[in-house]
């Protein structure tokens, strides 16, 4: 009823380019402090990932059994683990590996899934059938279980964790891109572009891609969190990263055995770091979605 009820909006003064985007992002962050908070958190995480080793007070790998299993103190704010390593240092340093796995796998699937989906949606026919079948086959597996199988088969390396995480996210990207491309394939402005002699490639590049990209970016942010969780889950059950490498999933796994005897700090801090990172990407994803696609806000 609002369609007939709301008065026609007066066109606002046009603004173009980067300044408009920045101004828009500014108003959104101002109107939504949660998104602002998430961006601040992201900056912190990135600082840890980039500067990690030079920020921390101790060597994350140096063990000292004399101070093993110490609860948090001023000297070791997050306590020490069973080998006397400083947990704070390990948590901070681990950010680089955890984020790198997520960033690489998401970048991989963004390109592969996005391209495959756009081709499938725009051209239809056999391209669509092949991409659809591929996505369906992946979706026929419980995704985490498939990732386990892939890493077990291909070999227990960080590279394979990245690959497995990308593969299980493929259907999500391919389907989103496919749906958006198919919806625009017969849109008036695409037909108009055909009439003015544009080739298919040019239509994809000028009419389809720029209109889909914002939604894909939202998807990227949302799946970043999922990728981090997935990688941490795999290393929690002993796949991928091996000790003593500092990584959040494996650190929680190491601390798991000490929970029942009350040494909570070993698992808690890496777990919290994991949670904050995922939370941060989810919040940013939601915030971006509000900017890009207000109708889909839930």
């Amino acid at each position, binding site marked *: 009823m609002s369609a007939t009820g709301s008065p026609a909006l007066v066109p606002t003064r046009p603004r173009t380019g980067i300044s408009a985007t920045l101004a828009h992002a500014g108003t959104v962050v101002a109107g939504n402090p949660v998104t602002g908070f998430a961006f601040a958190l992201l900056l912190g995480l990135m600082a840890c990932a980039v500067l990690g080793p030079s920020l921390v007070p101790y060597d994350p790998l140096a063990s000292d059994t004399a101070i093993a299993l110490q609860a948090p103190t001023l000297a070791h704010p997050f306590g020490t683990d069973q080998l006397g390593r400083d947990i704070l240092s390990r948590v901070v340093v681990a950010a680089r590996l955890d984020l790198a796995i997520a960033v690489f796998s998401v970048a991989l699937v963004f390109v592969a899934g996005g391209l495959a989906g756009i081709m499938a949606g725009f051209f239809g026919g056999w391209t669509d059938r092949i991409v659809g079948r591929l996505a369906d086959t992946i979706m026929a597996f*419980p995704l*985490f279980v498939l990732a386990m*199988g*892939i890493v077990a088969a*291909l070999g227990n390396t960080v590279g394979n964790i990245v690959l497995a995480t990308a593969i299980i996210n493929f259907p999500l990207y391919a389907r989103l891109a496919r749906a958006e491309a198919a919806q625009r394939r017969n849109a008036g402005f695409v037909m108009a572009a055909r009439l003015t002699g544009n080739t298919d490639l040019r239509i994809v590049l000028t009419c389809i891609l720029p209109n889909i990209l914002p939604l894909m970016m939202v998807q990227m942010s949302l799946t970043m969190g999922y990728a981090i969780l997935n990688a941490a889950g795999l290393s929690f*059950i002993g796949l991928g990263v091996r000790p003593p490498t500092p990584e959040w999933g494996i650190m929680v796994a190491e601390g798991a055995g000490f*929970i029942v005897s009350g040494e909570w700090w070993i698992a808690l801090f890496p*777990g919290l770091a994991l949670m904050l990172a995922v939370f941060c990407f989810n919040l940013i994803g939601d915030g971006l979605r509000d900017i890009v696609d207000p109708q889909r806000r*839930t």
Partner: protein
Amino acid sequence: MLRTLLDRLATTLPALAGVVVVSFLLTRVLPGDTAAYFAGPAATPQAIAQIRTELGLDRPLPEQFARYVADLARGDLGRSLTTGQPVTADLGSRLPASAELTLVGLALALLVAVPLGVAAALRQGSLVDHACRIVATAGVSLPVFFTGLLLVYVFYFVLGWAPAPLGRLDAFASPPPTRTGFLLLDSLAAGDLETFRAALAQIALPGLTLAVFALAPIARITRAAMLAVLAADFVRTARAAGLSRRRVVVTYALRNAMLPVVTTLGMVFSFLLGANVLVEKVFAWPGVGSYAVEALIASDFAPVQGFVLAMALLYTVLNLLIDLAYGLIDPRVGHAA
């Protein structure tokens, strides 16, 4: 009805074929010598050679695939090096534990998430709505194994309410005679309330852990679907016809909103079957997930591949059931113009 059932079954065939092909590929793409992998780290060259012939790895790939499918049809998934038992038997004996846990988790999640989502949509912007938002965002951000550990620390170590996280029954309880394999049901059927209580105490925390995990997507989609339906034209018609609020919300809005929720259950099951592996590890739950994890650590690959395939088959069946349930709610299914 039979016709729709057959049609549905036919649509799952390509998915099944895909699952079989992928799991075959997963057993054959092992880098290095597949036979050596399957023989385990301590095998002699003779043992590896024997495995190679046993698995038919010296044959051409199509023949290997035919053999793989034939074995599969007989329910032969190979033998576990650690337990010495056929993988199928191992999986079969451990599946009820996993199934019971998953279903308890899902039931808990549905019981909380659907009413929460509906309430949030009916009172947009209220306290309930904000609670729903927080649950939905926090739920997807919590690593499931971390939730489990937190619950263990609070309810076992600090409060002492829950038993030690060590399996389905504590050492002092005697398991009931097996009927369904679900301890909760079997103990009730045997009239053994003591065992029922013990089993319930053991499953409470892992079930809750899974529920927290599954809560978020269900609550989120329920709220979104409900909001969409409440804004739909036919709800406006129902209101303009003076129907009572209860009828508008339940008969008109909720039933329509359940359609996307049922669809989402497929995704939720996918998440749950994966999360199950992690939760079973945290709670030493004797299910198929911890079986696969133990095998993984021992470099015992037949059980891992068997587990992946079994989960995929189970998931396909669950999706089929979801499709059928959807068809029961929505008359339009199968009538697409």
